[in-house]
């Protein structure tokens, strides 16, 4: 099919909106309602993930050293830690620095006066690269650090990290499930509308078949119509959501709500396009099978 032919058929599909405006508006509204549920789910997940990423930045592992460790051995441990995949930075915290930090936290309580010596060990604080901040990877890095000679103990928020990862996984599964359910609902809505359009334009289809139009030519206007419905509904939903977030949410919510990121918007529109196509193809299958 030539480009000119494609544009002619696309115009045919879009002209259907002018010929059956009530049908088109009803379809777009019902699809928009489904998309709104999906967009809100993605928005919630996106905002939680954004918060979790900022927590990720604070994901650290503390590697405590044995007492009176020679400087050469300490340097060797530092080199080994720096060479570990997923470790972004390594900072040495001497016994004195640890004590100063303790004093800052504990206020007036003087540890040295109480014990007669500084019991806090020197340590290395590892900050992890964002991609390495999964519970499993942190466990691996900590375990490798613990096996280095001269290392006495390794500490990190194991349980807290595992709970966070589980919660994120649950959230993503919920998002996926919502996308599947909404996908079915939208495909069904597009399918129903295109079916009605097919019924309203059965004369045209009959003529197309009679003069020898191929199935691709017969399908094309309806596919364009299905995609247009889904895309208009998706864009309308995003615009509505953006208006609500910018103008309404600051008055009712304490937390700042971020709108979807460009890649999420692109994914949402691509998903809408696919659903529009699927719904239209679904409704045309039967019509074209009867075209012999």
């Amino acid at each position: 099919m030539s480009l000119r032919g494609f544009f002619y058929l696309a115009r045919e599909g879009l002209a259907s909106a002018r010929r059956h405006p009530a049908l088109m508006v009803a379809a777009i509204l019902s699809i928009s309602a489904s998309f709104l549920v999906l967009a809100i789910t993605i928005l919630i997940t996106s905002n939680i993930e954004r918060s979790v990423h900022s927590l990720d930045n604070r994901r650290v592992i503390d590697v405590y050293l044995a007492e009176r460790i020679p400087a050469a051995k300490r340097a060797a441990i530092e080199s080994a830690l720096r060479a570990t995949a997923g470790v972004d930075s390594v900072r040495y915290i001497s016994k004195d620095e640890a004590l100063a930090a303790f004093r800052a936290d504990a206020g007036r309580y003087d540890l040295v006066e109480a014990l007669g010596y500084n019991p806090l060990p020197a340590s290395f604080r590892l900050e992890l690269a964002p991609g390495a901040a999964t519970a499993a990877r942190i466990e691996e890095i900590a375990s490798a650090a613990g096996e280095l000679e001269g290392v006495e103990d390794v500490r990190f928020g194991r349980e807290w990290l595992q709970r966070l990862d589980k919660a994120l996984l649950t959230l993503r599964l919920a998002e996926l499930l919502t996308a599947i359910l909404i996908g079915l609902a939208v495909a069904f809505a597009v399918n129903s509308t295109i079916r009605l359009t097919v019924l309203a334009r059965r004369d045209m289809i009959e003529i197309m078949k009679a003069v020898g139009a191929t199935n691709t030519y017969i399908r094309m206007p309806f596919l364009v119509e299905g995609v247009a419905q889904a895309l208009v509904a998706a864009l309308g939903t995003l615009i509505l959501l953006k208006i609500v977030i910018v103008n309404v949410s600051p008055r009712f919510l304490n937390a700042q709500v971020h709108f979807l990121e460009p890649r999420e918007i692109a994914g949402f529109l691509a998903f809408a396009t696919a659903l529009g196509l699927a719904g239209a193809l679904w409704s045309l299958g039967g019509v074209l099978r009867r075209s012999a």
Partner: protein
Amino acid sequence: MIHFIHASKSYPGGHVALDDVCLSVDRGEFVVISGPSGAGKSTLLKAITFEVLPDRGEVIVESFRSTALKGRDVPRVRRQLGVIYQDFKLLKDRTIYDNVAFALRITGVDHPRAIQERTLRALHRVGLAHRRHARPLELSGGEQQRVGLARAIVLDPLYLLADEPAGNLDPRAGDELFALLREVHLAGTGVLLVTHNPGRADSRRDRLVHMENGIVRELVRPLRHAAGGVGA
């Protein structure tokens, strides 16, 4: 050539529409098919467009055989056939010009000049070029059927299939339409005309075929076509 080779077709419920039909039609023939309602005349035309496939036997249209038909062959066959209907089947929300040009556009002709030239030529042939901006419902029944004829011939078909084309027309409009069908035939297109009224046939030039209960019987065959090809 169009060949029916012992072709039979029954519909669910047992109605026999084609009963062991043997019939051959040359390019350039004018064949008048008459018979009572339910005789199988429309099914005969539908078998040529492969809208209906025979249960037994075979239908061959040019190089396409019903027994070896692939999905992509059906549009290719139909582009060699023009069809006009009793109820015209025009798109009422488009102009006369667009109704005719539509047939070109959806069969892959997309050069605007070619579309314009061929559409206007077809409308000239049926005497409606001056009404090209009108919509179907602004025309009389006879004019609407002439638009249907223009749409059928705009693709320069080898055969024109006309299924009771004058069924909804007054006698004068019917006469005008048959005169146009004669012109299309003289220009080299084979015509298969289904009609209740065999009086339309010209016994010197036309083949007259009668159908009853799915059986085809040749009544009149002009001398130049008498060599063979029909059985029932």
